[in-house]
């Protein structure tokens, strides 16, 4: 079970499957369900208010949560590997503020994008190392980091906003190939990460360590090395998400976005990443981020109080966990 495939390709003993059954299986997977949910939501809300499906609104939906989706890729890997990072929202706030501050200070613009990403990798690598070698549980360490980063940011900036950003800094507002940069990043990074997680030895080792760390050790995969590595890769995605976040608007609100870590973790979990580790895909996380953005937009289009947003998000998490449990039970992999 350690090396069970993504999207729950458990067992894999049946060599040939009729096409229909295959489609049914695909739909029963978390990714299939999310895709179905997105289509269904589009159909229902589109029937009530056709403007919901206008190209412009679909673009807005993809754009709105693209940086969350990018961060959720890294978060999925961390959770698959059996850890968690609840400092991610604070880290994005800090890196975004750093990026904006550097830009206003007049540094060459490409450096203002690259340095925060580099720092993101350094910080998460250090966190990974502490978790691996000092044996601090990830939830405790990242909770500490959350407070340090959040408190530090408020102390240093005093909550002052960053405006007067130089021309050309807003990379998230550009649209190479006619697709807005955040959406492009979301699509390309999801595809790359999905392939890497599925086919590379390192990607497989994340599943192995998260699924059964001892078994992984026995088969020669270092648990510590994998932990440091997964956090380093996570930092890369956090850094990119932070730069997209910082460059999306003309002003940077130099504080930590409220509940951002929750939204990112929700995307990963609703995307089918097992909170117990060892299972899930980055594709699911991205689909979930899109679904969450679509729900937020849909509430406005059908005149629903936004109070429902959090409730619906909560219902999604519960349904996902229930679906995950039932799939595991069917497969007999539930402990």
């Amino acid at each position, binding site marked *: 079970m350690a090396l069970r495939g993504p999207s729950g390709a458990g067992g894999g003993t049946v060599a040939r499957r009729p096409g229909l059954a295959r489609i049914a299986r695909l739909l029963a997977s978390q990714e299939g*369900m999310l895709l*179905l*949910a997105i289509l*269904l939501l589009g159909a*229902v809300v589109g029937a009530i*208010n056709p*403007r*919901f499906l*206008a190209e*412009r*609104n679909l673009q*807005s939906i993809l754009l*709105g949560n693209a*940086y969350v989706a990018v961060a959720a890729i890294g978060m999925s890997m961390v959770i698959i590997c059996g850890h968690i990072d609840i400092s991610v929202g604070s880290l994005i706030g800090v890196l975004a503020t750093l990026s904006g501050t550097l830009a206003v200070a007049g540094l060459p613009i490409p450096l203002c994008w690259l340095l925060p990403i580099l720092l993101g990798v350094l910080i998460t690598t250090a966190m990974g190392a502490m978790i691996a070698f000092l044996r601090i549980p990830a939830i405790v360490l990242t909770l500490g980091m959350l407070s340090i980063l959040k408190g530090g940011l408020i102390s240093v900036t*005093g909550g*002052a*906003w960053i*405006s*007067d950003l130089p021309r050309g800094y807003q990379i998230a*507002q550009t649209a190479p190939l006619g697709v807005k940069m955040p959406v492009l990043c979301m699509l390309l990074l999801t595809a790359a990460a999905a392939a890497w997680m599925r086919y590379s030895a390192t990607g497989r080792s994340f599943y192995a360590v998260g699924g059964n760390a001892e078994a992984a050790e026995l088969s020669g995969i270092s648990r510590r090395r994998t932990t440091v590595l997964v956090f380093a890769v996570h930092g890369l995605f956090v850094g990119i998400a932070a730069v997209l*976040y910082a460059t*999306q*608007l*003309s*002003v940077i*609100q130099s504080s930590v*976005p*409220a509940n951002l870590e929750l939204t990112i973790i929700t995307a990963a979990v609703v995307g089918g990443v097992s909170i117990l580790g060892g299972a899930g895909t980055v594709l699911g996380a991205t689909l979930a981020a899109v679904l969450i*953005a679509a729900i*937020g*937009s849909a509430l*406005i*289009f*059908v*005149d*629903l*109080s*936004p*109070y*429902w947003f959090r*409730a*619906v998000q909560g*219902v*999604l998490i519960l*349904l996902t966990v*229930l*679906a995950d449990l039932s799939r595991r039970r069917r497969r007999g992999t539930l402990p």
Partner: protein
Amino acid sequence: MIRTMTLALGLAFCAGQAMAADRWDGADELPVHPLACDGAAGAAVAKPYDGGKAVNPPDKAGKPITLIDVPKLIGIGYFNATSKGIQLAAHELGNVTATTDGPTEAKIDEQIRFIDNAVTKGIDGVLFAANDPVAIAPVLKKALSKGIHVVGYDANSTPDAREWFVNQAEFNGIAKSMVDNMAREVGEDKAFAIVTSTFTTPNQARWISEMWAYAQQCHPKLHWLETVEAQEDNNLSFNQATALINKHGEKLAGLFGMTSVATPASAEAVTQAKLCGKVAVVGLATPNGMRPYVNSGCVKSVVLWNPVDLGYAAVYVMRAVVDGKLKPGATEVSAGKLGMLRVVNGSEILLGSPFVFTKANIGEFDF
């Protein structure tokens, strides 16, 4: 799972519909006091003086006085501006020396220490903007008991702990300015939506109520579409404003931003949708957050008060108290270039109509 979700959405839909109230969404149910359409002061209910009194202060009428100004914190643009106004008034009057000194973080215990030190050292008057209305009261009462005059501005204490408080803006005044500016920019018979923090945030709910009441009375054809919540989150505000633009299309002529986060984010949404000039944004915000949009011409009116005027008025009020020109029961006070300011709520001086930041003046402010 899908079926359950559809059910949940369906239920939510019914509940949402049932919540429709008389007032705009986001408004509270408290009584409203809309100003007259021409801006004349509403018939205020007279309330007796409820401020405190300095005990046997030395008679310094017309003589030089020394003041200390203790804002919530120092080193931020907003209180730099009030301090600038204080120096401006002191310079104009010629017989006032004022020093601004306060904590570098908005901490009430440090603020109390600054006031306490000044009282011990001996001073003629204290100006303050309280970090906590109740916790600051004892040290202010101590100052009053030693014959030191006390005037607050920006953030009040309990009334009996100071003599007068310069109130920067009343809810109905802000509401009038917001609605008037929107009507002027989009026209009388157009539709608008509101982006607020949450429906239950007290100040925002009060403003929306007063805007509703004032619009009913003075701009009855303006059409309210809906109010959306956006917490105090920049990106969520942007997404919500964008969704409003996408949903209402041509119908939407204006957006009200109710917080200093929602307003710039709404302006950003309009900018990125390339609808500047077609969708107006009017809102409460600080100049720094709005500078790019005001300078680009996308936003024409940012409503707030002028902190320089606020500090300026506080010094004039203090001088009038020392000179015996502002006594309990007075209905107005002269404040230099600001003219006569009204007494409201027993012991408060109203700064006047809100200040509207425009392309012409936004460059003078840094907060």
